[in-house]
Structures are given as structure tokens and as C-alpha cells.
């Protein structure tokens, strides 16, 4: 299943996905923030090593399901030029009990940020832009 999308992430569609009767659903949504350390942001561009990022996001979904007592974990990440407020990442976790959903969702987003080969470039109101600092990758 595709984890990377160049169009708006469909949050409502994700909420409609199967397995409603699990008990708890936790939806984490990262959105483009209007300022970073006080500097006004006008938008954000996301790029990825796409084939590797697809594999990493699928791996993180599987790991998250294996580590926590949850029913499902679904990750979508947007690529391309995003406007303020656009969703850049969505993680939907379903579980019988809420504690596992909170832990699993947090795990998935932290791993994604550390391991998925995705980069973001912030665009500022003065026309400047900058790639954000990140975490060096290591051989697995």
C-alpha cells in the first residue's frame, strides 16, 4: 500500500477505513506550522528517497504492530509543496485499549522522524528557505 502521496492526505477517508469496533482510534496529524522559532513560514517542501521511504514506513507500521497490543497502524506521508496548515504526516492507530494506542502512535512518529529518508525545506516570508536539521542515518 502506498505510504507517500503528492496530494492532500485524506484524513476523513482514513477515519472511515475498516475496523471501527476496535475500541480506540488515535489519529496523529502533523501540519505545516506558521512559524518556526519565531520566523514566519509560508510553506514547506518535502522530498524523499521514495523507494526507501516506502519500505521504511511499511517497516515502521509492522514494527509498531509487533511491539504494541494494537489492531492496526497506518502511516501516510505527503511529499511536494505544502501550504500552511496542510497535513504532512498522518498516523492512525486502532486498538482495544487506549494506553497501547498512545504508546504505539508516539513510537511510530518518533521512528519515522529518525529513520525515514524524508527531508523538509522551509520557505520564509522574505523569500529565503532552509533545509531543517535532522538525524544522520546509519546502516541497519
Amino acid at each position, binding site marked *: 500500500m502506498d505510504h507517500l502521496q503528492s496530494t492532500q492526505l485524506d484524513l476523513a477517508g482514513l477515519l472511515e477505513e475498516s475496523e471501527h469496533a476496535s475500541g480506540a482510534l488515535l489519529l496523529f496529524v*502533523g501540519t505545516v506550522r506558521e512559524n518556526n522559532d519565531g520566523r514566519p513560514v509560508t510553506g514547506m517542501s*518535502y*522530498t*524523499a*528517497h521514495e*523507494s*526507501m*521511504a516506502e*519500505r521504511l514506513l511499511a517497516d515502521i507500521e509492522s514494527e509498531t504492530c509487533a511491539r504494541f497490543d494494537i489492531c492496526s497502524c497506518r502511516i501516510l*506521508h505527503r511529499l511536494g509543496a505544502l501550504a500552511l496548515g496542510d497535513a*504532512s*504526516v498522518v498516523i492512525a492507530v486502532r486498538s482495544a485499549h487506549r494506553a497501547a494506542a498512545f504508546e504505539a502512535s508516539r513510537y511510530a*512518529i518518533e521512528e*519515522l*522522524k*529518525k*529513520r*525515514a*529518508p*524524508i*527531508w*523538509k*525545506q522551509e520557505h520564509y516570508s522574505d523569500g529565503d528557505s532552509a*533545509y*531543517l*536539521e*535532522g*538525524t*544522520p*542515518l*546509519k*546502516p*541497519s
Partner: protein
Amino acid sequence: MQVHLRCYGALNPIFGGDRVAWQFSGASVQELLADLAQRQPGFASWQNRVACALGDHIVHGDYALTAGDEIALLPPVGGG
């Protein structure tokens, strides 16, 4: 040998594009990175923070390259 570099994220503006052919004398990934640090303006500060991948797999510094390999240069990541 000549290899093909794919330059991601902040490395893209340093190399002036996302695909660059690179000729160097050496055989391993770490020799390639050392050569880039010496000869490509702006790359030196990245040398120890960049991961290299062939296909979808990150390789160690001692990985032996073959002429024509396509090597992805991956700066530190931070999606989400």
C-alpha cells in the same frame, strides 16, 4: 572509476542538481566521501553525517563500489 550520485535534501543545492556523475580514484564508499569532501565545494561539513545507499539499502563505509553504481547521498533526515 565513475559513479552516479543522487543528491537528496540539502545536498541537492550543494551539487547543483539531483543527479551528478563523479569520477574518482578509489574503491570504497568512505573513499568516495573523502574525495567529495576534498573536491566538491560545500561538502566537507557533510562528510561524516551523510549515509550512502545502493538501491534501497544503506551501506557501510567499507562497501566496495563498482564503476557505474548509482549511490544515493542521504543527509540527516527529519520528515513528519
